[in-house]
């Protein structure tokens, strides 16, 4: 199956909320390409009719890349069939959705390793290396 192809909705744009949003995404892609300006759309603020969110998800389809983040609950970060358009869904530890966004960007910020985490990781690695050094010395009877 070619995952780049969006799955077509059986009821095309039934209440009229999906089509304007797709147009907004095209404008956001223009800004990304021409001015390098990313956009994030918070889907919680839009008055979707029943089924429209699924319709939007189907219209955007699945792209080549998806990632799962495990921090304070799971998050799904998935590129849609349209490069530069990302579906980002945050869940809490109970599995409930706490945020759902469409990000029009080269890569969502949350995918990047954060400086604070890099620094903490470096400290952990150093500590682990020192511990293993001490252990080796102990075993060698030094």
């Amino acid at each position, binding site marked *: 199956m070619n995952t780049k192809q969006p799955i077509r909705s059986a009821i095309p744009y039934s*209440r*009229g*909320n999906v089509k304007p949003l797709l147009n907004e995404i095209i404008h956001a892609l223009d800004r990304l390409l021409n001015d390098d300006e990313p956009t*994030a*759309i*918070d889907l*919680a*603020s*839009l*008055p*979707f*009719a*029943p089924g*429209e969110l699924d319709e939007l998800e189907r219209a955007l389809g699945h792209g080549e890349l998806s990632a799962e*983040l495990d*921090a*304070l*609950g799971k*998050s799904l970060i998935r590129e849609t069939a349209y490069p530069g358009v990302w579906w980002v869904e*945050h869940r*809490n*530890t*109970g599995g*409930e*959705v*706490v*945020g759902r*966004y469409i*990000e029009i960007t080269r890569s969502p*910020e*949350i995918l990047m390793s*954060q*400086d*604070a*985490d890099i620094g903490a990781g470096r400290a952990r690695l150093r500590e682990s290396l020192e511990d293993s050094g001490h252990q080796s010395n102990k075993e060698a009877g030094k």
Partner: protein
Amino acid sequence: MKTIPTLGEILQAQGVSRRGFMKYCAATASLLALPPAMVPRIARALEQARRPSVIWLSFQECTGCTESLTRSSSPTLEGLIFDSISLDYHHTLQAASGDAAEAARHAAMQENMGSYLVLVDGSIPMANPGYSTIAGISNYDMLMETVEGAAAVVAIGSCAAFGGIPGANPNPTGAVSVRDLVKDKPVVNVPGCPPIPMVITAVLAQFLTFGRLPDLDLHGRPTAFFGQTIHDRCYRRPFYEQGRFAETFDDEGARKGWCLFKLGCKGPITYNACATVKWNAGTSFPIESGHPCLGCSEPGFWDKGGFYAPLSTGKFGSGGKLAGAAVAGVALGAGAAVAGRRRQAKYTKEG
């Protein structure tokens, strides 16, 4: 005075990564109805935020507002209590009772004098102080004593905000709202029967994040959530414009999800965020389930006529408001208004 750790310090001590924190901030931005571009600013503010002490007082109420909050998913109540606020007194939820509970309230007041938040659900009976007491203290005395050292008061639910069902005609207990009594502290009203849990947590999150209360409308409600009517944001609004209405709960219009105006929907004159924030972790809201909006976040909604009487009968709100609704629906809406009046007249005659 005890040192209160910042939220950043608490999360760090719990081993929450920076990514996790950014996710928390994104959820908070969504909760506050702020654009995602605000996330970095929220992150900076939350890192330095210190947990405010919260005292929750329950008066003439049904516990529906607490039930609403304890089913809130964004953020979880557990997270809210342990990470974002210090809930020092809530006589329904706390383990302590009697003197020990009252001692906890007084301790929280003394330790956080001038900076704690008071949340109130339920109205206050003024006809006789004995109508509602806690540990032998009348609701009025407990409210006035507790708010004295508070930074602000949040009235949760329509009873605390406007008197609610205890205040409905004939109001046997002489029930009044928090705002009727508290004049020298900022009072935020979060009405609804019950209020949307996310809106309750959003007010707390706003105070936590920016150290100030949200902008309010004429009735003291946060404009971020009460700035537009249910009708303005309703996904069935296009059917109103087209003049397509459900006439009964089992007709073709009802099955096809048409506008519920003729079945008494109060959406055109009700300011709330149900149509966008929705209920049960964003599952749906009453209109999406096929039931008209009752207008529960408006002052005195219990006394404004039948829930199923169309607005066009003029019992709910003024004729001017109805005219506004009909104008919005152009000629078709006006046609619906006339038809609604006829139908109501028929019901009245038959009833």
